[in-house]
């Protein structure tokens, strides 16, 4: 199965389960969770079912294209099911069958894994899903995002596409994965790995990045003040990426690190709050009409209680 067939199979599987097929976000993120289609949409009472491929950049993970398993940028296939249906595990296992992983032929396991993102103020419980000893999916029941309870609970399924493709194609080096007939992953992304690693570890300008961080942070705060949580969140993501670049460059000391993470978390929290308020003002349009009024009242009560504190 070619890399792109893997994507197509997952997309059509989840599309047939009534998920919105969205796209990866059009700016740098470290994981599909940071895409507003996950981070913001899991907040509040509205249902939301979505699937998309997220190119995920992790500057510190770059290996100049020399490591067979580690990449500056990998691809996650991200699914959000909110609320999660009672047979969510079975539906997920169905997606594995769709890509050719038969649970009677492979040793599939759900191995405890608690997920936490300090920069997003988010956490959840779930598993790493193992196929014959290899992690192929991170499966999480979101409990909190942006410091707010996720209610109803959303299930997040994050497939590691490169790993799964390596397994299905039985290759030991990610660059040997066939993207499509006649084109390997190497041809598509190797040079990107080399240059991005060079940039992250050696060529980036920490002084400029520190400056950008402060600028983005100020802009995010300004936009929050203007009750524009969506553009504000864009700047929060830019802060996060600037931080990741600085971190990879070794420009942030251990003691400063926690403070920077705290600054991003504070922005993410404000964006989440602004988003919740704006959905409330809109009357939670994704809810069935009969439930909206009650949901708005509940949200208002929760907001007032929060503000009273």
């Amino acid at each position, binding site marked *: 199965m070619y890399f792109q067939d893997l994507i197509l199979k997952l997309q059509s599987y989840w599309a047939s389960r009534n998920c919105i097929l969205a796209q990866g976000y059009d700016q740098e993120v470290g994981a599909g969770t940071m895409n507003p289609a996950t981070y913001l949409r899991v907040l509040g009472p509205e249902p939301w079912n979505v699937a998309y491929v997220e190119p995920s950049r992790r500057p510190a993970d770059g290996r100049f294209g020399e490591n067979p398993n580690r990449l500056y940028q990998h691809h996650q296939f991200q699914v959000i099911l909110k609320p999660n249906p009672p047979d969510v595990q079975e539906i997920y296992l169905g997606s594995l069958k769709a890509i050719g992983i038969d649970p009677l032929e492979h040793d599939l*396991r759900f191995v405890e894994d608690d997920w936490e993102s300090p920069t997003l103020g988010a956490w959840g419980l779930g598993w790493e899903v193992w196929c014959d000893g290899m992690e192929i999916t991170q499966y999480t029941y979101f409990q909190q995002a942006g410091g707010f309870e996720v209610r109803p609970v959303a299930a997040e399924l994050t497939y590691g596409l490169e790993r799964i493709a390596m397994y299905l194609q039985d290759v030991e080096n990610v660059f040997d994965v066939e993207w499509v007939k006649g084109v390997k992953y190497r041809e598509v992304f190797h040079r990107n790995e080399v240059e991005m690693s060079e940039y992250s570890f050696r060529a980036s300008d920490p002084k400029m990045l520190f400056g950008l961080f402060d600028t983005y942070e100020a802009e995010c705060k300004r936009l929050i003040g203007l009750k524009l949580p969506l553009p504000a969140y864009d700047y929060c993501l830019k802060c996060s990426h600037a931080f990741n670049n600085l971190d990879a460059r070794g420009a942030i000391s251990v003691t400063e690190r926690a403070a920077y993470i705290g600054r991003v978390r504070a922005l993410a929290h404000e964006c989440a709050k602004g988003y919740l308020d704006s959905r409330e003002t809109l009357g939670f349009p994704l809810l069935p009409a009969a439930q909206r009024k009650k949901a708005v009242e509940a949200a208002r009560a929760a907001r007032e209680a929060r503000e009273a504190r």
Partner: protein
Amino acid sequence: MADLLVEIGAEEIPAGFVPVALEQLERDLAKALDDARLGHGEVKAAGTPRRLAVWARDVAPKQGDARTEAFGPPVTQAFDAEGKPTQAALGFAKSQGVDVAALERKQTPKGERVAVTRIEKGRKAEQVLPALVERLIAGLRFRKSMRSRHDDVTFARPVRWIVALHGGRPLKVRFGEVVSGSVTYGHRFKAPKAIRLTGKPEDYVAKLQKAFVVVDPVARRALVEREVAKAAKAAGGRALENPGLVDEVTNLVEFPTGIPGEFEKQNLDLPAEVVISEMRSHQRYFAVVDGAGKLKNRFVAVAGTPVKDPKVARHGYERVLRARLADARFFFEEDKKRKLRDRIEALGRRTYQAKLGSELDRTNRMAAVASALARALGKEALVADVVEVARLAKTDLTTGMVGEFPELQGIMGAHYARIEGMKLEIADGIEDHYRPVGATGELPRGDLGALVGLADRLHQLVGIVGVGEKATGAADPFGLRRAAIGILRLLLDRGYHLSLAAAVEETLNALAGVKLAQDRAVVAEQVLDFVRGRLRAQWSEEFPSDLVEAVLAAGFDDVVDARQRLEALAEVKARPDFVPLALAFKRVANIQEKAGGPGAARVDPALLRDEAERRLLAELERVEAEAVSFRQHRNYPAVLKNVATLEPAVAQFFDDVLVMAEEPALRANRLGLMRRVASLFADVADFRKIQAELPPQAQQPQA
């Protein structure tokens, strides 16, 4: 009589949670039935990662009647002179909701009172059980739990079904959105269809067995062991023993199947611990060794599904391990490029503890304390090596390998030290300074590891207490208890006659740059108190606590010496003449205490009037002379036995002589005599703390 069967079907519960939850279910169900006055037979829990079950056999069909009594005012206040109920009686009757005529009179330890007896008729079991089972499920506590969908109830992972049967009839039980029924499900992949249950435990276990679920954890554990042994044999060796991994794997699968695999032989060049950690920590594979215990390039994985063709799964297991070992090799080769000595500086960039500074500060202090300890023991020749080990002890924290496998700290340092060609003793010292891990872990092989390990733990204990942190209750977030226990085990194992107070002082000297939360003296006192507490707790598990108290009261600055005194005391206490001896010494000590310090004078033989006094002095001089050499050799049993020979003279003295004589000179002289007797054992044990009594018939009137 009918059996009660409850099963909570859940998505995969973390392995570590399962045994804890089963224990709680068993305990809670038994208690709930007892509290509900429902007679029952055996209560037993069983489960896997996908189900927690508990059953009670022969649950009575009906609750026992409950009889409760409420007591009101005394009869004397409840009725007036004419026998009419008073306001007090009326009030009590009203509060109990009965007519005043229904009040009874009952004798109580506080006299006769009015009372109301109520009999609550037992209800039928099926009326009581649903709520009881709901409370049982809602009462389960996990280390971490989560909400599943819309509702507020939390569980380790989402609950998907509940079985609740009493005598085969379903009980209606609800947990969040899930309502109970009478069907369960087998293995997720091999037997996913609904299985109807009769409610009999035997039926439950047998039907699940057929559905590829070994629900009894004991049976499943045994099966894991058999499967692993079989697969290891097929791989040409035997599995390296690892009970912790067996426990974990038992609760990762419902139906274990052992599958052998192999990895490239060249990876055996890597330190065996690294290969084992890669397999164990990341993959939950069992390592395989040959007859001589040497690691083979084989492993055993335990599959959760009896897969169609084990070769497919095996191929996957091997692929993952190959990538992992390639990573390990990368770390190993990279780590070797930088010598341990060149890593010392990098320790300065790692925080040990916010108020105590960096890992470099820590190692510098460890070196200072460890060399002071070596000197105190007269081991001057070791000082240079001790300093070397201390300075290198933490350098492997900066290696990639320890970053990946924290459990290999010390072990990797030792490997790299040997590879660099350092002396074996230095390498062993680096590894051993972490020993003992826990109360039963292996101890250091030599002085270097022991001294540096002592210094590390002293620094931890004194440093953390010094900056104002404490161990409270069961929580020990800073490892203070572990540190104290480590110190004690090291001292006792090595037989180091070190002064604890002096060691604490040395540590405080090394901590000179740190801002303490209290005065030095207060910190030292808190640390010694803490150590004393550990000693008392540990030794009281082996010896009667009064003996431990007696010995600790006489001092524990030299822990090894205190231990020897304790053992001697326990030995002597078993002798028949111990009781009179202990009583005599108690009296001596009590008189000492009563008279206070300044009352005693140097013993002047000229002032000894009584025969008993003169005899006591003569005996005392004999015992003092004899005891010198015993004391020098810390032969405490001999010291105590020797001192015991003084007992008749002491007893005679108390019979014949009045210590607190009118005449001040006589009194001071006699107190002086007592002081000399007391000093014979004052530094061995405080006899006042020992519980010793004569049998009643032999008890003598007190003088």
